[in-house]
Structures are given as structure tokens and as C-alpha cells.
């Protein structure tokens, strides 16, 4: 009898170990998922493999009308989205601390000139506008950028970035005012140009 009880206890003990191991495995899996989610929070909408991938960008605005804005440029003049009505646009959020932004900005400058006959316009919006116009203007000059550079506001960031802090972020807007693509992070020059062409072609003649 005692032997049976002892064996039963042993069996119960082993069952406990197996159950404990299973629970441990489940916790490890959920913890790994939690960690993965933590990483995603840091790199919203993208992974290292998805750099510059259109599908990696914030998608809430894709297919939606571009949010209106009234922002100051480096000369203190107010510039509105409505100033560019009927034109294909690329709205590019950048920061003075952002190295990949500064890699692509000369490319955007080149596209703004190449595709100007198509009405294409690039608009830069400076995320860290608090650094001041002088520093921003100095950076812009060094980069050879001549397209409009505007100063961001919390409203513009809320409307376009939805809390995302990753830069660069680009919004491709067709001539009907619809956001047709959103990209996060630096992509290749060819990919960018391809999306510029798509933007120009979108929305009919």
C-alpha cells in the first residue's frame, strides 16, 4: 500500500515537473513575443530587413487624403498643403541629427529638379525644428537642398507620424491629394525614384 502511495507521489511529482516545464516553455515563448513587440515599438512599422520598404511604413494614411497643414518655412512664411493642390508631392520628414535623412535628401533634390516638368514637388518637414532656423538652414545649405523646408509642429507630427519617432518618413501624395505610399527609413535611390514616378502617374491626367 505504502509502495503504491509512494509510486503515486512519484508519478505526481513527475507530472508536476512536466507541467512546470510546459508552463516554462509557454512563458518563454510569450516573453520572446513580448520582447519582439518591444523591438517593434522602437522601430515602428519596420524591421532591419524592411528598410525603405513601402510596406514597412505607417499605413494609416495610405489611401487617405493627405492631412492639411500650415507650417512656417525657414523665412518665416506660412506654407500650406493647399498651396500645392493638383500637384504630385513627396512630403519628407527629416531631422538635423538623422544621418540616413541626409543621405536621401540630395537624391530628393535631384528628383525635384528632374521631375519638375511633371509638376512634382518635394516638401521637407524638419522634425527637430526646436534646434532653430539657423542650424536647419546651415544643414540644408550643406546638403544642397533648394526645395521648401518647413518647421514641424506637434499637430503635423500627430497627423502624419502618429507618434512614430523614426526618421526619415516619406509620404507620397498624388495630384488628387491622396496618400498613395508611406515609407519609413532609408531605401535605395532607385526605389525612391520608382515611387516618385508612381506618384506622378497616379490620379489620372
Amino acid at each position, binding site marked *: 500500500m505504502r509502495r503504491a502511495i509512494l509510486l503515486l507521489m512519484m508519478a505526481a511529482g513527475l507530472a508536476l515537473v512536466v507541467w*512546470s516545464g510546459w508552463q516554462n516553455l509557454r512563458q518563454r515563448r510569450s516573453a520572446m513575443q513580448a520582447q519582439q513587440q*518591444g523591438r517593434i515599438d522602437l522601430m515602428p512599422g519596420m524591421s*532591419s530587413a524592411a528598410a*525603405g520598404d513601402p510596406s514597412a511604413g505607417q499605413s494609416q494614411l495610405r489611401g487617405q487624403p493627405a492631412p492639411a497643414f500650415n507650417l512656417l518655412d525657414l523665412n518665416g512664411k506660412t506654407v500650406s498643403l493647399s498651396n500645392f493642390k493638383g500637384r504630385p508631392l513627396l512630403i519628407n520628414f527629416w*531631422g538635423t*541629427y538623422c*544621418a*540616413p535623412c541626409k543621405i536621401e535628401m540630395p537624391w530628393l533634390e535631384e528628383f525635384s529638379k528632374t521631375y519638375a516638368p511633371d509638376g512634382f514637388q518635394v516638401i521637407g518637414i524638419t522634425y527637430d525644428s526646436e534646434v532653430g532656423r539657423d542650424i536647419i538652414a546651415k544643414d540644408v545649405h550643406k546638403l544642397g537642398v533648394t526645395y521648401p523646408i518647413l518647421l514641424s509642429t506637434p499637430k503635423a507630427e500627430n497627423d502624419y507620424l502618429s507618434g512614430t519617432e523614426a*526618421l526619415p518618413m516619406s509620404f507620397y501624395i498624388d495630384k488628387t491629394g491622396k496618400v498613395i505610399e508611406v515609407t519609413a527609413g532609408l531605401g*535605395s535611390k532607385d526605389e525612391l525614384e520608382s515611387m516618385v514616378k508612381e506618384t506622378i502617374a497616379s490620379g489620372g491626367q
Partner: protein
Amino acid sequence: MKATWLNRTRHTFAPIVSLVFILATTSHLGCAQLGMDASAKPRATVLYAAEPQTVPAARRAVLELRFQIVPGFHINSHTPNSQLLIPTTLALQPAEGVKAGELVYPAGVPYSFPFDPADKLDVYAGDFIIRLPIVATAGDHAIDGTLKYQACDNASCYPPKTLPVRIVFTAK
């Protein structure tokens, strides 16, 4: 007879019981460590590995301040290769009984973003150590400071952040 049977049973099952105990213990420890990891989502890109240190009193000594950068990210070194980039800097507050020297930052490593391999930046990735020469009076000391850094991954950059740092050490 019963005693013999029990002895034999103990002998037979002792390894199993030990195994049960070891498995249960390691399983529990595993959960505890994992619990720490799971709760510590990498919200910050740089972590300070605060380790109490002991140095000789009233003599020149060097404190090692260890930082860890979350995998997949890098930060500009103290001397990035561009004036346009924000360098990593540690600002320390004065502490009573501690005469602090000039911080010694580690050298960075070259880094290029994809699509622009020609542009070499100077960054920290993984772990890095900032050294602080000090002369301190005997006793326990704490120096408060702030690490300012700006992080990027391989395609995007994030706004500059500050990390509060408390350096705790004993001079004796």
C-alpha cells in the same frame, strides 16, 4: 523488511527525486530570469550597467562606466565624423569628496548605412566603456550624471535621448 524496502526504494528513486528537485529549481530560476527580461522591454536604446566599484582612497584611480546598446542599434561616438551629428556625451555633477578628471571616451567603429557605403560614420555598437579618472576620499560615493546619445538602426534614426546615470563606488 519494511525498512529494507524503504531503503531500496529511496536508493532507486533518489536520483529521480534529485532530478525532480533540480528540474523544478532550474525551471523556477529560468522563469525568474526570464521574468526580468520580459519586463525589461528595450524602450531605451542604451542601458547603463551600474556596478558598484571599489578604488583606493586618496589616490588616482579610474572608474569604468559600462554601457550596453540594444542589438540592432548604434549611437554616434563621442567624435562622429560629421559636425552635423550629435556626439555621445556624459555630463557629471560634482560630488563631495571626489575630484573627477576628464572623461575618456572609447574610440568608435566605422559604420556605413546601406545605399551609401562610401559615407563612414563613427559609432558605438554593442557594449562600450567610458573611463573616469578620480581621486576620492575614503568612504562611499555616488556621482550623478546624464548620458546624451542619439541612436539609429540600419535605416532610421531616433531623436536624441538622455539616460540618467548614478555611479556608485567605495574608496578605501
